[in-house]
């Protein structure tokens, strides 16, 4: 093979100042990030944050409008034909003939590669056998997702881009998918994963890049991200919508060491000094203001809370 041996220091993906626009809408706004080889790296962000656009630029579908993108040391747009055999791609949706059977489609993608994985174990592993002779268009969303994942790994790539891999999967299939991604990493495959599921990023990722409005707003391991902003949060959910001045009033009660953020009309999140004392103060405030708590919980910070603190809004589904 003519590929030069990759130096250990060379990143799997290196994005520097990427800008992508659709018309006058900016999808990616000066994004810079790095993906180290042999890791699972999650790109986390709400819908419309620019995740898919970024991935599709790395896959060479789109040309970087500004900034540079290197994937396995190659320019994904100019050197696409060199890059494609070395990467695996799982599209967010679709990716087969409407009338094709799952196993047939997988065999076809395998036939385009030089040293594909054996088909049967992969079919069994991802439960694609159950698809039988059903044409692609009549497979369930979860089955289509699993086929998409199988197609991404069958060519034995060095680097896999998986776009929202478990969207629409049942819990068992999600677990299978996670285990598969972990095995890929153990065998030296680099995985770049986009998701808006926090538990997915927490479970799998060595490194999380949080993106919002096309910009990188935080990077770190799930542990670093959840610990760097105070270790706990208090969540207050009430039965009737808050009066409009409630968050400000609660903030005054708690003082500047805690931070109150409304989540919606009936719930809010308190971070910073989130401990038993604060919990008691919140409880007292509720009583004083005739607010009836439905739940008041003190818990560990999750990535979701971190995201909320960073962006001021939830990830949504």
């Amino acid at each position, binding site marked *: 093979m003519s590929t030069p041996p990759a130096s250990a220091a060379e990143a799997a993906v290196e994005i520097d100042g990427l800008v992508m626009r659709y018309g006058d809408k900016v999808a990616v706004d000066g994004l810079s990030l790095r993906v180290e080889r042999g890791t699972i790296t999650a790109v986390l962000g709400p819908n419309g944050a620019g995740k898919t656009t970024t991935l599709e630029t790395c896959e060479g579908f789109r040309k970087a409008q500004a900034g540079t993108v290197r994937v396995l040391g190659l320019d994904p747009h100019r050197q696409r034909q060199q890059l494609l055999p070395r990467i695996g791609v799982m599209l967010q949706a*679709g990716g087969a003939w*409407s009338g094709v059977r799952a196993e047939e489609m997988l065999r076809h993608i395998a036939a385009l590669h*030089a040293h594909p994985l054996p088909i049967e174990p992969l079919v069994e592993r991802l439960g694609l056998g159950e698809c039988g002779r059903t044409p692609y268009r009549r497979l369930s969303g979860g089955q289509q997702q699993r086929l998409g994942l199988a197609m991404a790994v069958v060519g034995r790539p060095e680097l896999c881009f998986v776009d929202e891999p478990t969207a629409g999967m049942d819990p068992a299939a999600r677990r299978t998918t996670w285990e598969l991604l972990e095995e890929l990493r153990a065998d030296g*495959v680099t995985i770049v994963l986009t998701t808006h599921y926090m538990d997915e990023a927490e479970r799998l990722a060595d490194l999380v890049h949080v993106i919002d409005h096309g910009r990188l707003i935080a990077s770190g391991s799930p542990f670093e991200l959840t610990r760097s902003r105070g270790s706990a949060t208090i969540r207050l959910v009430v039965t009737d919508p808050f009066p409009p001045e409630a968050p400000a009033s609660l903030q005054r009660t708690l003082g500047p060491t805690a931070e109150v953020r409304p989540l919606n009309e009936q719930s809010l999140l308190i971070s910073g000094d989130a401990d038993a004392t604060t919990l008691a103060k919140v409880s007292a405030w509720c009583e004083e203001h005739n607010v009836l708590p439905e739940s008041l919980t003190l818990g560990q910070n999750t990535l979701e809370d971190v995201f909320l603190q960073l962006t001021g809004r939830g990830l949504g589904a």
Partner: protein
Amino acid sequence: MSQGTFTPAPGAAPLHRQVRAQAAMETKLLLRNGEQLLLAVVIPVLALVGGTLAARRLDLDLAHEPVDVLTPGVLALAVMSTAFTSLAIATGFERRYGLLKRLGASPLPRIGLLLGKVLALLLVQLLQAVVICAVALGLGWRPGGGVLGAVVAVLAALLGTCTFAGLGLALAGALRAEATLAAANLIYLLLMMGGGIVLPRDTYGAAEGPLQLLPSAALGDALRTALWDGRADAVAFLVLLVWAVLGAGLASRLFKWE
């Protein structure tokens, strides 16, 4: 699966193997699809058999035997059904289901995809020609024009394939998958009935002249002239060529991968 199962071993299969896989898959899916098969084989054969028997019974005053009149026209119809209707519909749904994008992320280069598609089209057309010619011979077809006629007919069919494939891809590029399905079938039906493809233009009365500008009539004329007299119909070839250029231009402007 054990440790080391997924150890990277990337690489593209040789291009000829990719093209073969692509052509085999496209042919298989085309032949598996009932509607496409109806369009590709059943309708042309019905037109041939039904038309021949009806013309014999009605004792129409044609310049040639009914089966000699109809066979070139039905061959032309078969070319149009595969290169235009089937291709347009298949391409529409390939885009709709993300297949084109999926292949765009695989090692298969564009030229490989194109070669695979062309090969699949030609394979299906070969199959159609074998079936139609066998039925026609059974009905007493005696192709005129000899070897030269056959060569000219094959050239006309190839040019017609280019023409209709370009128009089909342009249609699939311009419309959504469902709209492509409807439009491609409708255009096929209209051209089959009134497009001078199955029946010679002189059976259309006053429309004989204007009809020759249609690609359907041009392909029919070219095949009839070849298989009757062993000649190339220059006007028909020219008309097909103009439509081929137009179709290719439109297709490359309108075609979208996703």
